[in-house]
C-alpha cells in the first residue's frame, strides 16, 4: 500500500494545535513559576528555556510515535526511510520548529509543490496520512 502524503492544511493545522499545547505545557508554567505574567517582556531567560522545552516536545513525540499530539489529532504521521524515526531524524526535524523564522525558511519547498521541508529532505523523512 502506497503511503499518501499529508495535505498542507493538515500539516498547518497540526502545527498550530501543537503550538497551543506547547503554550499550555511550556510557556505558561514557566512564566507562572518565575512569577511574571506572560505579557511582561522579561524574556532573556524565558525564551531560550522555552525553546529548549519546545524542542523536547517535538523530538520526543516524533521519536516515540512519529506523531505529536497535533499530528494525532489531524491523522498524519512522520515516517523515516526505515519506518520509525531515529533519534537523529527526530532531532533534526524538531530543531527548526521552535524558531519561527527558521521554520519559515525550512517550509519554503512546501510553497513550491514539494511535500517535504528542507530538514525532512536532509534526514529523509516524510509526513503521511495515517489512521492508526
Amino acid at each position, binding site marked *: 500500500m502506497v503511503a499518501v502524503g499529508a495535505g498542507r492544511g493538515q500539516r498547518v493545522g497540526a502545527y498550530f494545535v501543537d503550538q497551543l*499545547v506547547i503554550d*499550555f*505545557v*511550556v*510557556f505558561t*508554567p*514557566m*512564566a*507562572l*513559576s*518565575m*512569577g*511574571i*505574567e506572560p505579557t*511582561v*517582556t*522579561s524574556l*532573556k*531567560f*524565558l525564551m531560550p*528555556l*522555552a525553546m529548549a*522545552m519546545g524542542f*523536547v*516536545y517535538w523530538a*520526543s*513525540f516524533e521519536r*516515540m*510515535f512519529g506523531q505529536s*499530539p497535533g499530528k*494525532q489529532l489531524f491523522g498524519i504521521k512522520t515516517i523515516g526511510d526505515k519506518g520509525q524515526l531515529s533519534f537523529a531524524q527526530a532531532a533534526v526535524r524538531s530543531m527548526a520548529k521552535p524558531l519561527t523564522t527558521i521554520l519559515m525558511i525550512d517550509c519554503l519547498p512546501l510553497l513550491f509543490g514539494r511535500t517535504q521541508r528542507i530538514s525532512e529532505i536532509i534526514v529523509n523523512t516524510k509526513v503521511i496520512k495515517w489512521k492508526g
Partner: protein
Amino acid sequence: MERIVVTVVMLGLLFGLSYGAGMATKSGIEIFDMKTDVAVVRIHGAIGMPTGMFSTGAITSEEVREMIDEALSSPMVGALVIEVDSGGGTAAETELIAKEIERARESVPVVAYVPELAASGGYWIASEAEEIFVSPLAMTGSIGVYSQFVNASGLYEKIGIEMTTIKSGEYKDMGDPSRGLTAEEEEMMQELSDYVYLQFVDAVAENRGMTREEMLPLAKGAIFVGEQNVENGLADRVGYLEDAVARAGELAEIENPRTIVIEQQVGFEEMFMQMSSRITGSLLSGTLSSGWRIFT
C-alpha cells in the same frame, strides 16, 4: 489507549519540567543577583478624575499599583523609573498613588522622569522618587490645592427650574448647584483646603529634604520650567528618559540596563466611555459635581 496515556503522562512531565525550570531560573537570578532591567512605569493623565471632554484619560492608584506589581514581578527588574506626565487630579487619589511609589521604594530604587508636565498632584507623585529628572522644557510645580462649587441658581431660574431640597443635617446639601455656599460653609471648605494643602506641602518638603518653611515660597501654585526646577530644589537634573534609566541603573548597580515599559492598559469599554463622555459633554456634569473634590 496506551498511546493516549503515554501522551498525557509526557505532557504532564513537560509541564512539571517547565515549571521547575522556571523556578530554578528565578532562584538563580535571585541568588546570583542577576538584575538586568529597569522598568519604566508610565503615569500619564489626570489623577483619579472621571474622564471629561478635554481629558485624555484618568489614572488611579489601583492602576499604578498593578503596573508597579507587574514591573516588580519580574525577577530581573532592579529599578524603576516613573515617567510622570500629569497636571494633577484629586488630592485623595494623588496621596494613594504617592503611597504606591513609597511602597515600591522599599524594594527597588525609583527615579522620576518628567518629559513634559508634572504639576500639582503630578509633582507630588514625582517627588516620591529618590531623584527627579526633568526634560529641558518640562514644567513642574503648581503646588497647591483648590475646589470649586458652582452656583447655578441663576441659570435654573432663567430656564424655569425650581429645586426643593429636603435634608437632614445642616450642611448636607452643601455644594449643591441650586444654591451658593453660605459664608460659614465657605469657611469650612477653606479650613479643609488649608489642611490638605499643608499635607501636600509637608509631603513634598519631606521628599525633597526641605522644611515646610523652605517649601512654602515654592508652594504658591507657581509653575517652573526645566533648569528652574533644579535651581529651586524641586528637581535634581535636567535630562531625558535614557538619563533617568541610566541613573536608576546606577542606583541599582546594573550596568547597561535594559528598559522595559509598563503602561496603563485602556480596555475597549473604557475607551468607549471616554468617547461617549466627550460626546455628551460630561464636562458640564463633571463641573457641577466637582465641588466635593479637592484637587491638587
